């Protein structure tokens, strides 16, 4: 199966290891991975901050980069959610009916990575080995917009060697929220401190999630307080194999 990787600008620039892991994992599961180099950013920063009109050229760019592919896979719940939740509205508001048709055709073919593995590939045991104590934080947009449900947990439970521990108050937002973390920095920090306490309570060495932007926030906090726990994107766990 041929899949195009929608890497997201944050992963491309700051977390290339997540991209490499996604490629290796999908190849191991029998996919042929393509990477359209024309992709940049999906426009989530603009869309969520009230600059939807500036996101429109990025919607066009996305359609151009990915339009020809049958499956587009994204290792970020919130960037996938941007495409799923805002693209049709932005295209409709632009009045460009041609763009709207292209968006409508493409949007259902874009998949958040964990749902792609469980629902499109129909796989739960990806053959991973990860001998660490791990806790999973369901990021808000993966949970409430992408509706990943327990797909990520089913994938994690099948990983050999893993010691998966439940995160208390797991579904409470970590306080990232994009520009929220900067504009309302103190409130964001208050939310983060509770999330860090929950992670520490589990005794996990790894906090995993489906979004590196949330993990950048949680991980930045863990590192600042020397918590002895680190953030790892879920696909990096799934791509790990014994002896690697």
């Amino acid at each position, binding site marked *: 199966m041929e899949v195009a990787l929608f*890497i997201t*600008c944050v992963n*491309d*620039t*700051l*977390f*290339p290891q997540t*991209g*490499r892991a996604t490629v290796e994992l999908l190849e191991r599961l029998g996919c042929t*991975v393509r*990477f359209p*180099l*024309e992709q*940049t950013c999906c*426009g989530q*920063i*603009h*869309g*969520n*901050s*009230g*600059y939807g*009109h*500036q*996101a429109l*050229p*990025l919607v066009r*760019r996305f359609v151009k980069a990915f339009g020809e592919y049958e499956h587009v896979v994204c290792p970020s719940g919130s960037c996938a959610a941007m495409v799923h*939740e*805002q693209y049709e509205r932005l295209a409709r508001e632009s009045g460009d009916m041609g763009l709207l048709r292209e968006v409508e055709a493409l949007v259902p073919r874009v998949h958040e990575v964990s749902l792609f593995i469980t629902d499109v590939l129909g796989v739960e045991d990806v053959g991973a080995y990860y001998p660490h104590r791990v806790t999973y934080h369901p990021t*808000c*947009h993966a949970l*409430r*917009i992408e509706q990943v449900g327990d797909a990520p947990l089913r994938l994690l439970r099948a990983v050999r060697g893993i010691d998966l521990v439940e995160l208390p108050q797991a*579904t*409470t*937002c970590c*306080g990232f*929220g*994009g520009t*929220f*973390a*900067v*504009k*309302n*920095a*103190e*409130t*964001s*920090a*208050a*939310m*983060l401190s509770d999330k860090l306490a929950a992670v520490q309570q589990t005794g996990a060495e790894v906090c995993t999630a489906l979004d590196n932007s949330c993990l*950048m*926030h949680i*991980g*930045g*906090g863990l*590192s*600042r307080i020397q918590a002895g726990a680190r953030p790892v994107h879920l696909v990096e766990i799934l791509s790990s194999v014994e002896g690697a």
Partner: protein
Amino acid sequence: MTGFADAAREELRNPQLRRNLRKATTTIRAKRAAVVGEVDEWEALRDAGENVKQRAMADLATHLEQLEASVTRAGGTVHWARDAAEACAIVARLTRAAGSDEVIKVKSMATDEIGLNDALALQGITAHETDLAELIVQLADGDRPSHILVPAIHRNRSEIRDLFRATLPDAATVSDDPRDLAEAARRYLREKFLSVKVGVSGANFAVAETGTVGVVESEGNGRMCTTLPDTLITVMGIEKVLPTFADLGIMLELLPRSSTGERMNPYTSLWTGVTPGDGPQDFHLVLLDAGRTATLADPVGRDALHCIRCSACLNVCPVFERTGGHAYGSTYPGPIGAILTPQLSELKSGTDLPWASSLCGACYEVCPVKIDIPSILVHLRGRVIRETGGHKGESLAMEALARTFAHRRRYEAAQKAARLGALPLSKDGRIERRLPGPLKGWTAVRDLPAPPKQSFRDWWRENRG
């Protein structure tokens, strides 16, 4: 007025407030989840609630005129108030006409919104709040409600004991036992119920086809106010109208479970005009616009008018749970306040509130009438930026970012620039310093990952390209 971020900073420093909020919201979230969980068709009920509100709003003028005709037919009088000032003036005039300089009040968001108590005070009329929590807030001079359902959520019982001792007659030795506190308030309020001639209420709902007005409450004090006085004046936002009596049934199933986490609330008072020999013989319904018509003109934002003031969104909101209600600087705090306040003021106040959210979406999940609060927050961010100019620096930064992302070469050059720019600040792949400027808030409590040597696309070109 200080903005949300500054107000929140102050509130966050109050450990007592944080503790009260955590305890109260955690308790009520669990109660709500339990009673919602036992209704198999809860999602269908939410759909029905949303549908009722959509029907009501789609033909609001017709329903309101029908309501006016029904109330008038039943012996009541309907008044139309364009704004807060008009509504307050009507209540003051009616109170004077009834020969009173006092009113007893049922807990009401609409009268809080229009600042009725202060407006009446300027006219020499004293308003007595009779909801226990509203009374507490009123007795503490200068305090304000901080939650739609639990207005005194920011106070603990020893504070309330001290307040009662200082302000209530015959309460000099009251203890901080909740029963004692309630008893002291009861003794004080009973005397008011029996002596004051004018009652003022809000309305949870009003039914157009019958003219029936309803108030939903827990204490029974509301029923005292709506039955004992000679004159009853109800102030109601025009968006509270329901087309039919059957619609009311749906709302009364949704509201208590979402609000107090009860299957049914203790007191539901419904009245239709005037009944000879029973209850107030003079009934006035003041229909309040105050920005609602303007809100209705926004095809996305208008759904905020569907709100039935249950406060489920406040109780699940991770922002509200930490900052409390005062930080919002509005009668309506929390997620619903963040979309109502700027719209009701026609973007004259609360314009920073759409940003007082991480867009986590927990509010939408629990809303009994399915208001898509996160989408409306995003929509209002756009409106505020377009209609008030927004923040110049941010808008320039967003424009620059958009230009960068518009071309592959520019984007790849920016990736390299970020890597080089971060080099002098990074150590072991991390930026641990506190940085100035827009990253100040971030680096105050978090490290930043430094951009790695190789971007993903460079790796791809090298290994798969």
